C-alpha cells in the first residue's frame, strides 16, 4: 500500500564506529606497545620510521584495493602481481634496460593483469572472487616460468636506491612513494567524478546504470588501477630486496584486504576511505613490529594479527547493527 514505512533506521549523520575504529585501534596499540615495550626500543624514532617503511608495499596495494572493494568487487591477484611485475622489471634490467624502462615495464605488466581481470569481469559477469582466484594461479605459474623458479638479482643501483633503499632528508624513499600513492588515491576517490562513480556502483549498481553512468568502463578502470598500484608495490618490493623472486608477495592479498576493511571500507561496497586504509595498513605493520620486539615467534604473530582483524571489524559491525535496531 502507500503507507510504507520510510525505512527509518537511525544511520543518518550519526557517529559510526566502523568508520573510526581503525583510528581508535592504532592509538590503543601504540599505547599498549609503548607501555609494555617502551624500554625494548619500540618507542625510538628509528623503529617508528621502520614500521612506516614496512607498511609501504601493503599500503600501496591497499589503495588500489580500496577502489575495488568500494565498488563491491575483490582483487585477489595483488600478491601474485607483485612477484610477476617485479620479475619483469628484473629481467628488463638484466637484459640491459635502465631503471626507468624497468619501472615502465613493471607498470605495464600490472596494467595488463588489471585489464585481463577487468575484461573477464565485464564480459562474463562472473564474480570477481572467482576470476581473480584463476588469474592469481596463472600469475604464480607464469612468474615461476619467467624466473625459472630462481631468484633474479638486481644490480642496478639507481633502481634500488630510487625505489628501495634511498633516503631523502633521512626519510626512506619507500615512505615517500607510499604517501604519493595515497595522495593520488585520495584525489581519485574524493575529488574526481571517478570516485563518486565507484561508490555509486558499489552502493547500487542498478541506480548508477540508470543514472547514465558507464558502469562497465568504470569497473574496468578500477581493476586496471588495482593492477598498476600492485605492480608499483612490486617495484618497491624488489628494489628493497635487490632481487625479484616468485615467492614475493605470496599471500599478501589477505593483509591487503584486512587493511582496507579495517580502514572502514565496506566489504559490500558503497563506502570507502583512503586515509582509513592507510591507517589500517599502518596498524597491521605496528602489530607485526610490536610482536617481533616482544619476542613472539612468526606463528604467534600470525595468531595475534588474525585476532586483531576480527576484533576490530567485529566491533564496528556490532555497533552498526545495534544502531539499526534502536
Amino acid at each position, binding site marked *: *500500500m*502507500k*503507507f*510504507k514505512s*520510510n*525505512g*527509518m*533506521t537511525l*544511520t*543518518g*549523520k550519526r557517529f559510526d564506529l566502523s568508520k573510526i575504529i581503525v583510528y581508535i585501534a592504532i592509538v590503543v596499540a601504540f599505547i599498549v606497545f609503548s607501555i609494555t615495550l617502551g624500554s625494548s626500543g619500540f618507542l625510538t624514532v628509528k623503529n617508528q620510521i621502520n614500521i612506516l617503511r614496512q607498511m609501504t608495499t601493503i599500503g600501496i596495494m591497499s589503495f588500489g584495493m580500496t577502489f575495488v572493494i568500494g565498488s563491491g568487487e575483490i582483487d585477489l591477484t595483488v600478491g601474485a602481481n607483485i612477484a610477476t611485475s617485479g620479475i619483469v622489471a628484473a629481467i628488463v634490467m638484466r637484459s640491459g634496460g635502465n631503471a626507468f624502462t624497468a619501472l615502465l615495464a613493471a607498470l605495464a605488466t600490472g596494467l595488463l593483469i588489471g585489464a585481463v581481470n577487468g575484461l573477464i569481469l565485464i564480459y562474463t559477469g562472473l564474480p570477481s572472487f572467482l576470476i581473480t582466484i584463476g588469474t592469481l594461479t596463472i600469475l604464480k605459474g607464469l612468474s615461476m616460468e619467467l624466473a625459472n623458479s630462481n631468484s633474479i638479482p638486481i644490480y642496478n643501483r639507481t633502481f634500488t636506491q630510487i625505489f628501495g633503499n634511498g633516503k631523502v632528508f633521512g626519510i626512506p624513499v619507500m615512505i615517500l612513494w607510499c604517501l604519493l600513492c595515497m595522495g593520488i588515491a585520495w*584525489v581519485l576517490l574524493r*575529488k*574526481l*567524478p571517478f570516485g*563518486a*562513480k565507484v*561508490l*555509486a556502483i558499489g*552502493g*547500487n549498481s*542498478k*541506480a*548508477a*546504470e*540508470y*543514472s*547514465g*553512468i*558507464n558502469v562497465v568502463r568504470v569497473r574496468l578502470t578500477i581493476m586496471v588501477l588495482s593492477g598498476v598500484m600492485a605492480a608499483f608495490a612490486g617495484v618497491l618490493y624488489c628494489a628493497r630486496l635487490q632481487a625479484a623472486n616468485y615467492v614475493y608477495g605470496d599471500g599478501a592479498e589477505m593483509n591487503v584486504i584486512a587493511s582496507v576493511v579495517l580502514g572502514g571500507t565496506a566489504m559490500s561496497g*558503497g*563506502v570507502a576511505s583512503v586515509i582509513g586504509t592507510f591507517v589500517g595498513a599502518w596498524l597491521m605493520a605496528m602489530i607485526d613490529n610490536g610482536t617481533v620486539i616482544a619476542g613472539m615467534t612468526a606463528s604467534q604473530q600470525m595468531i595475534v594479527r588474525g585476532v586483531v582483524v576480527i576484533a576490530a571489524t567485529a566491533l564496528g559491525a556490532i555497533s552498526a547493527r545495534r544502531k539499526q535496531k534502536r
Partner: protein
Amino acid sequence: MNKPIIRLEDISKSFFGVPVLKNVDFEAHSGEVHALVGGNGAGKSTLMKILTGVYGKDGGRIFLEDGEAVFHNYKDAFLRGIAMIFQEMSSVPTLTVTENIFLNNELLKGKCFLDGKSMRKRAGELLDRLGVDISPDAVVGDLSVGEKQMVEIVKALSSDAKILVMDEPTASLSANEVDKLFEIIENLKRQKIAIIYISHRMNEILAIADKVTVLRDGQVVAELISRDLKVETIIGHMMGNETGTSFEWIPPKRAFSKEAVLKVEGLEVADAVRDVSFELHRGEVIGFAGLMSSGRTEILETLFGIRRPSKGTIRIDGQEVTMRSAGQAVKAGFGLVPEDRRTQGLVLIHSLKKNLVLPILKKMCTGLFLSPKKINETAQQSISELSVKTDSADKIISLLSGGNQQKIVISKWLRSDMKILLLDEPTAGVDIGSKKELIATVRKFTDQGNSAIFVSSELQEMLAVCDRIYVLKRGKIINELRHEEIESEEVLQNEIQK
C-alpha cells in the same frame, strides 16, 4: 445460505493516523471465488494482509468456522488454513518442485531422515489432483511464471489450506496461462476451497468470480453477485461520484511544436511490446495507460537503452538513434524516473546530494576536480525548488519519506541537459501532497520547451497531466485519446478494460 468459512467483521486499520480501512465487513464461502476490487489505495491489500496475519488490526474481529481467531503473524493464519499466493514468487529457484512443495514441511523417515520417495509421490498426487502437467522433479527456476504459480498453489494445498488469497495472479501470465489458471481455480472450487481473488482486470473477474466486493477509500461500497454483472457497473462503484481527491488538469502554457521531438515506429521488444508507433512533440506530455504488464515499462526502458528492441526505429528531431546503454540515452537527451525507486533510482546508503549529482558529475567540476561548492549550491537549489523536506543535503537518502526521495530522483534529471523525461509510476508510495507537486513539476518542465512521457496506474494523475494518452493492451497500442476526448476517469478505465 451456508455458513461462511471466514468472516471479517467491522475491521478498521490506520497508518500514521490515516484511516485505511473503516468498518469493513467481508466474508468468503467454501467452493466460491470472491473477488475484491477497488482503485489503488482503496485498501484491498491491507485487508488481505490483516486476513493473513501480516498486519494487526486496530478494530474488528475475524471468525473462522469454529469461532473467533486471532492471528499474530502469517504463520498463525497459515496454520489455520489460510494461504496467500504471493505476487512475487516465494519459491526457491534452485530446488525441484517436490523440494519446494515440502520446504519446511518435509516428510521424514524414522523422524530423522528425509523421505524423498514419499515426498515425490505425494507431490505427484497433488499436481495430478489439480490437473497440472509439471514433473515433480523439475527445477523451479526452469519453469514459466505461470507454472511457478501453480507450484505455489500446490504448496499451499499440501498444508491443507482451505482459503487461498490470490493477489493479481494473472499480472504476468500469458493468455494461455490465464486459461490454465482458471481451469485450476474451477478445480479448486470443486474441492471446496474458498478463493479470494484480487485483480484490476474486470473481464477476468466477471469470468471467474461468484461474488464481487468493491472497496473505495477503505469502505465496502458494494457487494455484487457476478452473474449478469457488467464491467461498467463495477467501475461505476469503484469511482463513485465524488471528485474530492482528483487532481486538477494543468493545461500547457505554450503550443506544441509541429515537428515531433521523438518519433517511434514499429517498435518491438521480445514478447513485451508489439508494433508500437507514437510521437511526442516539444512541450507535450503523453501517457501510456494500461494494466500491469501491458508493455508500459518496457517501452520506457527501451527508449532509455536498458532493453534492446528487436525491431523498429527511434528518431529524435528526425535523426535515427540507436541506444545501446543508458549512458547513450542520457547523451541523446533522455532521463528516466524508474519504476522502482529503491532498487533502480537511488543509492540508498548515500546522502541526498551524492544521489542528486550522479548524472551530472561533469557539470559539478571546476576543471578536473569536483567542486563541493557547486554540489552544495545545486543541492540547495533542488531542495528549495521542489520543496524537499530534509534537515540538510548531507542526510542519508533512505531517511527521507517516499515523496521526498522521489523528488530527488526527478531532480537528478531536471539539473541535466535532458530534453525528454520518462516517468514510470512516479507517484507510487508517495503521499498526496507530494503527488500534486510532482505532477506540477512535470508540467513546469514541459512548459520550458521539453517533453515528457508519463506512465501510471493512477488514471486520475494521467488525466491531470497528459495531453494525449495511448491505451496499451498486451504490448499493443489499441487507442489514442486526446485530453479533450476523455470526459472522466471512468471513460479511461473502460478503455483500459476493453
